[in-house]
């Protein structure tokens, strides 16, 4: 069942990528080769953006699937671990200090922020290995990073820096180049690899923590894999594109009924579906007419994701009733 699903998703991506390359403010008709600057638009603007959407979407989808498996909760989102806010805090500090002016330093700051959040998470929850403490530690780091971000914004040295920070936090793939692709891809792929390694342990966790341990799962090893996998995928995404929410929540939900529902069966299909969703969503953001620029991807996905989350909550409430 899984192989067929993976094949279908790969085919859908193979169809969506060329279509997304043609769409945008300047529409490129492949049958009319005289579009001005077509090769520059394709190779320097749209292709890196499409590749980045695929890479980040894959990372977020896989991270969401693993996160839901780890917390045994369909409402879990990779953002819960506080790694995205940690990375965002790093990026905000790069704006605040002015280092963001250098193209490579912003992602480096964000990756250091993600690494800091991962280290803090491991330090607080690492010894015990329990999921509850882990989640609470993640929430604490989220709220601490959020508070520090607000502090940085309120103390920003110039109104220009403040506006830069706020705009950047909204999350977008606009104006991204091959440089961002080269920064994010190795981290994201490594993160997905780590999450795939955690798959069997996540399957065992389906039966609860005690049963998983009785099946030979080492909770501390699993926790370390989760911190590394989520940290690499989410951290790399935030470093190059800002905060893009809800992909990690929505995608595993859409994919789960098409699999045998084991967390390990969900990771690769969720990565592919996440890649497809982010590619399509980014393409729609690009072609939607909006005064003053294009709709921010982070905002668009939150606008779509919030009602979806509400729908899930209502469905769960009906299930409990």
């Amino acid at each position, binding site marked *: 069942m899984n192989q067929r699903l993976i094949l279908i998703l790969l085919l859908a991506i193979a169809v969506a990528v060329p279509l997304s390359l043609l769409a945008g403010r300047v529409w490129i008709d492949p049958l009319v080769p005289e579009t001005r600057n077509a090769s520059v638009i394709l190779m320097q603007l749209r292709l890196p953006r499409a590749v980045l959407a695929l890479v980040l979407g894959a990372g977020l989808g896989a991270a969401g699937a693993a996160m839901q498996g780890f917390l045994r909760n369909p409402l879990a989102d990779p953002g819960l671990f506080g790694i995205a806010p940690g990375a965002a805090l790093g990026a905000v500090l790069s704006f605040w200090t002015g280092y963001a002016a250098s193209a490579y330093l912003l992602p480096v700051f964000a990756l250091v922020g993600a690494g800091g959040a991962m280290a803090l998470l491991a330090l607080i929850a690492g010894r015990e290995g329990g999921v509850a403490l882990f989640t609470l530690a993640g929430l604490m780091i989220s709220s601490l990073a959020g508070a520090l971000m607000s502090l940085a914004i309120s103390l920003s040295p110039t109104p220009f820096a403040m506006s830069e920070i706020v705009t950047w936090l909204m999350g977008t793939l606009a104006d991204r180049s091959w440089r961002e692709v080269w920064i994010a891809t190795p981290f994201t792929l490594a993160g997905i690899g780590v999450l795939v390694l955690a798959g069997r342990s996540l399957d065992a966790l*389906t039966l*609860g923590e*005690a049963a998983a341990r*009785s*099946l030979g799962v080492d909770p501390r090893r699993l926790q370390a894999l989760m911190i590394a996998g989520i940290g690499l995928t989410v951290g790399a995404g935030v470093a190059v594109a800002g905060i893009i929410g809800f992909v990690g929540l929505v995608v595993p939900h859409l994919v789960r009924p098409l699999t045998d529902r084991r967390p390990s069966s969900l990771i690769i299909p969720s990565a592919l579906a996440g890649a497809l969703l982010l590619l399509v969503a980014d393409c729609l953001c690009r072609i939607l007419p909006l005064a003053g620029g294009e709709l921010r991807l982070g905002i668009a996905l939150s606008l779509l994701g919030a009602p979806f989350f509400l729908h899930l909550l209502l469905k769960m409430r009906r299930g409990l009733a």
Partner: protein
Amino acid sequence: MSLQACDLGVKGRLEELTLALNLGEITAICGPNGAGKSTLLSCLAGLLKADTGHVALDGEWLGRLRPQERARALGYLPQSPEVAWDVSVEVLISLGRLPWRGAPATEAQAAIDAAIAAMDLEDFRHRPVSQLSGGERARALMARVLATRPGWLLADEPLANLDLGHAAALVHRFREQAAAGRGVVLVLHDLSMAMNHADRVVVLDRGRLAADGPPVQALSEDVIARVWGCPARWLGEPGARALSVG
């Protein structure tokens, strides 16, 4: 494959407990609330590290075994086991093969098929767990443990929440497993079940061993009065006894 607890102590829960359990028989662990039954079972399963003493499997300390080796030998069914995702019965049972990473797929499928047959679940093989009755679910969870093909089955209150018929059917399955040479260790609240179906009963009282032996001795009226603090009388014939309390 022997399973022994030597001078086992867990602060505030178990005190200097020494036990040697036998393969091929059903051992029931009984005792009042807070006696340390689940703590003892967790130690025997290698899930809880004792403060003093140790548990040994074939003479090897559990703490020194690799988690996978331990998991292959000791099948553990927790109290009120959960199933987080609505997987099919076959997928649920296949989770029991996780400790056998690298084993041939044919061997895994044979173990899953055997566990399905042992728990009489063939008709439910592809059914989602959410659509099972309480008794069917209990059998499916037991089959998950059997799919590992462990030497020992350790179950914490496996009959809780089951009606009489389903509880009797599950006890019958445990008996079959003991007859097949496995060691079966059950934490039981229902003393009649322990009296009628166990080969040996271990009674705990506030973390200490209060009685250990054949059910007739370990669950004698004197022991029940001393440990549970209430007068009780056994009625009926051996093998079909009922407990009258008060």
